[in-house]
Every structure is written in C-alpha cells, then in structure tokens.
C-alpha cells in the first residue's frame, strides 16, 4: 500500500484531508510497535539516565545504521515472498575482499572502495537471484546453500588471516567514523539508502511491481510483469546493500575476519518482522522496518547499559521480541475491530 505516498498528495478539500489524516493514523499498522518502543525507552531511561543522552542516542543510531540498511533490502525480498539467508556471508566476503584491496592499494578513493564492495555484493546477490529466478530454486534453499558457499569462499580467500586496522589506510577507516555536515557518515549513508528505496518502491513502476509479484505472482504474470527480472532485481539490490554493509562493517570495526557477521541474517529478518513485514509477501513498509531496526538497536544498546546479567540477556531479548510482535498484533486487531465497529450496519 502506498499509503505514505497518498498522504503526500493532499486532497482537494481540507475537510477530507482531516478525515484521511485521522484514518491515516489508524491505518498506521505499526502503531503498537511505536508505542512499545516509547514505553520501553521510558522504562530504560528511568533505570539509566544516560540512555537518552545525545551521545548514547548517537551511538545507538550509528550502531543501528548498518542493520537498518540490510533490513530494507531484506524487506524487498520478503515482499516478493522470498528470504535471503546468505547476507551475513555476503557481508563477510565483500568486507574481506575490500579490506584486502585497501591493504594493498592504500590510496584508493573511499568512493571507489564503497563501489567495489557494493559491486561484489551485487554479484553475490545476482547469483542468488539467478538461482531463484532462472533455475527456480526456492529462496530459502538457494540462499542457504549460497550462505555456505560464500562463507567457505571467504575463508579460502583469507587463508585464515584477518586484515587488521594497521593494514587499513586512514581514508578507509574514516568511511565509517568520519562525519558529513556534523552527522556520522554511517547515518548519512543509511538516510540516503532510505530515500532511494522509498522513492523506488513508492514512486516507480518497478517498485510497485515488487509488491505485485509478492502479492500475487500468478496475476503478475498475466499483467505482463517479468517476475524473473523483479526477483533478479531484489536479490541483486539486497546483495549490493549487503556488500555496501560489508565495507561499512569492516571500516567501522577496522578489522576483517572470515566469520564476520555470521548469523547476522537472523537479526536482520527479526528487524523486518518486528517492523510488520509479512513473510507471506506483498506487504511491508519502510517506516515499519526502520522501527523494527530501532527496537533491536535499543535492545543491543540498553541491555549492557542496564547492567543486566549476561546470562539473562538472551532470554530478555527473546521475550521482548516476542512481546513486541504480540503487542503489535493485538493493537492491529484492536484498530481493525474499531474500524468495524464504526461501520454502519
């Protein structure tokens, strides 16, 4: 649903605008999640006042930037009824290759480096896309297999070695630590990605076709939408974003390892589903996915701050994720029920 797009194009009559705005709020399906995040933040703030300090918020947002970039890519894939389990490995392979490159060619322009990583990722994504669209493999199987393969290749090309910070030129490390207009580059890059994807999925034909393919693949075929092309596109985009994230990851942590981001795909998927993206395809919105990433970011940031015993952290994280999705569901149900009550019979 291009609801956000609708809200951007105000109606002719002001009265109608009011009504549709109100309806817009009711229609905002992630209301429960937003409320949950706010309440959670207040509770954390009460226990540790440094939680909502500028510095901590900045750290939190910076640490969440990569996750949210990946989650947007994953959203596109989930919309087409797919899934990509290989992104952790793609991050590793792109990070490793890029780190090896910059350690050899110290004076490479950062933009070239970013581009290189993105292209490496796109190649990985294209392999997934090819297997899925051309060979008709199920996404979960194809990407599970490629997860193993990319990871294996990463170990092979690294020969078990890591690329450490002393081998990385300053220019490369500053991709993630530098600032543009006073804002951390990671955040800037993430915002650019949000805007690009927002524009793509709400204002271009191709973007809408992604939803169409997920909503009903059969009728997409009848409408002449080339499903294969769309699948190829989303997996390549996901790969590209994972490749980009690989560069950012390695730059941020100033180290490239073979086991970088192992298992990270599940965190990314968790962010998407917290954000209300349906695994069954066809629906998912940027705002929701960003909220989902934020919730995970808050958990990662706050659990250490709250001095929670390390043995309780996993359990608390699991319960909060479960409670969040359940609360969100209940609120959605409530909203729907409210809408029904107001329907005249």
């Amino acid at each position, binding site marked *: 649903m291009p609801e956000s797009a609708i809200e951007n194009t105000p109606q002719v009559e002001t009265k109608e605008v009011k009504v549709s705005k109100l309806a817009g709020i009711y229609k905002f399906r992630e209301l429960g999640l937003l409320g949950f995040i706010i309440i959670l933040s207040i509770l954390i703030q009460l226990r*540790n006042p*440094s939680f909502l*300090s500028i*510095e*901590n918020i900045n*750290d939190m947002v910076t*640490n969440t930037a990569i996750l949210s970039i990946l989650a947007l890519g994953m959203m596109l894939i989930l919309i087409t009824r797919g899934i990509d389990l290989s992104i952790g490995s793609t991050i590793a392979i792109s990070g490793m290759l890029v780190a090896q490159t910059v350690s050899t060619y110290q004076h490479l322009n950062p933009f070239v480096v970013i581009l290189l990583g993105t292209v490496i990722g796109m190649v990985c994504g294209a392999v997934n896309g090819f297997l899925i669209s051309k060979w008709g493999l199920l996404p979960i199987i194809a990407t599970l297999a490629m997860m193993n393969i990319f*990871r*294996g290749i*990463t*170990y092979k090309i*690294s*020969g*078990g*070695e*890591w690329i*450490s*910070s*002393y*081998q990385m030129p300053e220019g490369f490390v500053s991709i993630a*630590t530098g600032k543009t207009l006073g804002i951390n580059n990671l955040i800037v890059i993430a915002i650019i990605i949000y805007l690009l994807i927002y524009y793509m999925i709400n204002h271009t034909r191709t973007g809408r076709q992604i939803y169409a393919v997920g909503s009903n693949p059969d009728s997409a075929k009848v409408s002449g939408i080339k499903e294969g092309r769309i699948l190829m596109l989303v997996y390549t985009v996901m790969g590209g974003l994972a490749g980009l994230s690989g560069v950012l*990851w390695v730059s*941020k*942590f*100033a*180290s490239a*390892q*073979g*086991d*970088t981001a*192992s298992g990270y795909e599940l965190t990314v998927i968790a962010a998407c589903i917290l954000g209300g993206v349906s695994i069954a395809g066809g629906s998912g919105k940027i705002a929701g996915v960003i909220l989902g990433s934020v919730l995970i970011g808050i958990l*990662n*940031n706050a659990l*250490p*701050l709250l*001095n929670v015993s*390390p*043995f309780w952290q996993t359990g608390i994280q699991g319960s909060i994720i479960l409670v969040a999705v359940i609360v969100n569901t209940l609120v959605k149900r409530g909203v729907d029920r409210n809408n029904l009550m107001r329907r005249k019979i």
Partner: protein
Amino acid sequence: ACTQGAPQSSSSTDDQGSEDTEGKKKYAMVFKNTGNPYGEKMMDGFKEAVEAIGGEVILRSPDQPTAEGQIQIIEQLITQKVAAIAIAGNDQDALEPVLKKAMDQGIKVLSVDSAVNANSRILHVNQANPERIGRIQIEAVSEMIGGEGQIAILSATSQATNQNLWIEWMKKELEDPKYANIELVKVAYGDDLRDKSVSETEALLKSYPDLKGIIAPTTVGIAAAGKVITDKGLNGKVAVTGLGLPSEMASYIESGVSPWMYLWNPIDVGKVAGYTAHALVEGTITGELGETFEAGDQGSLEIVEDGDGTQIMLGDPFKFDASNIAEWKDVY
C-alpha cells in the same frame, strides 16, 4: 546383546593398521574453528614440529566453534587411526566420551591452548600460567592508570573457561592492598563478536564516566575496545590492555590507546604440542608428573601438575609495546 562402546569385533582393529603404508605416523591437531589467524599460526607451529620429527600432519577445525563439530572430526581421526590428537577444546567436558574412545584405541590425546578435562586427555600444553596471565594484566592496568581509578573487564563469552579462569586470578590479584584504590566495576561479555563488543564497551564508558582502564583478555574484545576508545577520542583518558593478536592491536599500541598488552607466541605453542605428541607416541613420556623430554628447538620441558591432571607449562606471556610491535604485527 546390548553393549556400550564399540563391539568386540572392531575395538581391536587398531593394532593391525596404526601405521600407514609409508610408515609415517599421523599427528592431528584440532583447533576451535576455522578462519582464526591465532589458530592458523598454532597449526603452523604444530606442522613444523611434526615435519621435523618425520610424521604426517593433519590439521582440522570445524567451521563453527562448537564441541559437536569437534566430536565429528575426532571420530574421523579415530577411523583414520592417527597416532596422536592435539586439541584446543571448545568445551571442557563435552569431548570426554569421544576422546576417551580415542585413547581406548591407543591414540595419544593432549589438549593445547584451551584445556579439556583431565579425564579426556593425557596432558595439557598450557601456553602460559593462568595465574601469571591474570596477575600480570592487573599489574599492567595499575601501572597505566597510576594505581587508582575504576577499571572494567571485557571478556569473550560468559562461558569461555580460559577467560573465566584468568578473570578469577585478576580478582585475586586485586585483593592485594596495593590495589586498594582500584575498583573493578564490571565484567562485560562481548561474545567475541565485533558489534557486541563495541556496544558493551560503549555501555561501559557511559555507565562509568570515570572509567580509567579496560582489560580485555580476548583478541576481538581488546581490538573493539581499542577502536571505540580511538573513535571517541578518549586516547590518554582510558587505557586498554589485555591479550590480543599483535596484528590486530598494532594501530592501537602505536597510537598509545593501548600502551602495551600481552600474548604468547602461538607458533611456539603449536610446536610444543607437536613435540609433546611425538614424545607421547614414542613412549618417551607417559604424561606422569615430573617426566622431562627434549622438544626440538623449544628446549627441554617438564611435566607439571595441573589440578587433577598434568600439563606442560610454557613461559610468561610476551609483552607487546610500541618498541616491538612493528616487528611482530606482520608475524601473527
């Protein structure tokens, strides 16, 4: 008809074929996981030693650091009738049954780097005395922060036995009155994940604004701490030390974020493991307390006590600082 342990028909298969056609004995090393430069170096050392004594070397590690993966590998090594297995265990206890099986079939089992329990090995090759490792880091951090202030520890996972043991010793050392002004505020766990270690370090800095020092006895943790301190411009305010790979820490040691830190030489550890395995296979030693043997270029070694079992103890960890890091960072 129900039996436990391999049935008779096969339990005696080892006698006819423990020697390969070429007559070379097989020495296997199993590390925690693949793609770990520390492990790769240790395996390099092991390989060097085995080749020096004229054996055939097998180097294995599972792709994830799990005991389950190591069990599978050990079963495969038993089937191949290796002469000795040197293992860096992912779990102290979980390998006991399979390593016992190996020993029952005449395979000499030793642990190296991270020990398995005394029942499941003949002896352990200890890279450094845990007591010394623990105490030395407190001494170091105390020196760095001028003997007073808050310190924190950033460890690997909460169940990493090595780290936990060292942390125990750190706490013991802290009981010494000369550290009366040093307060250990928290032990955090970064799970050897970059992102988590960074979050934990950031949380430490925020929760304890007066923090003076961080000890991270784990490679990923110390590098992540170094990175966060560097990025936040806290160089000089918060000191980082601990155990880490010189290559990973070179920038931070050179910049002074971490004035110095420690580690042993994994290549040497691997070599000692190789020679020890050879001595066990040849029967030069049986793993009893007090035995000594010649370990190639590593000199003469003695078997000492270790709780219920025995071990070979290498020297103190090596100190890496600005003066020597440049020559080591390319080595490992």
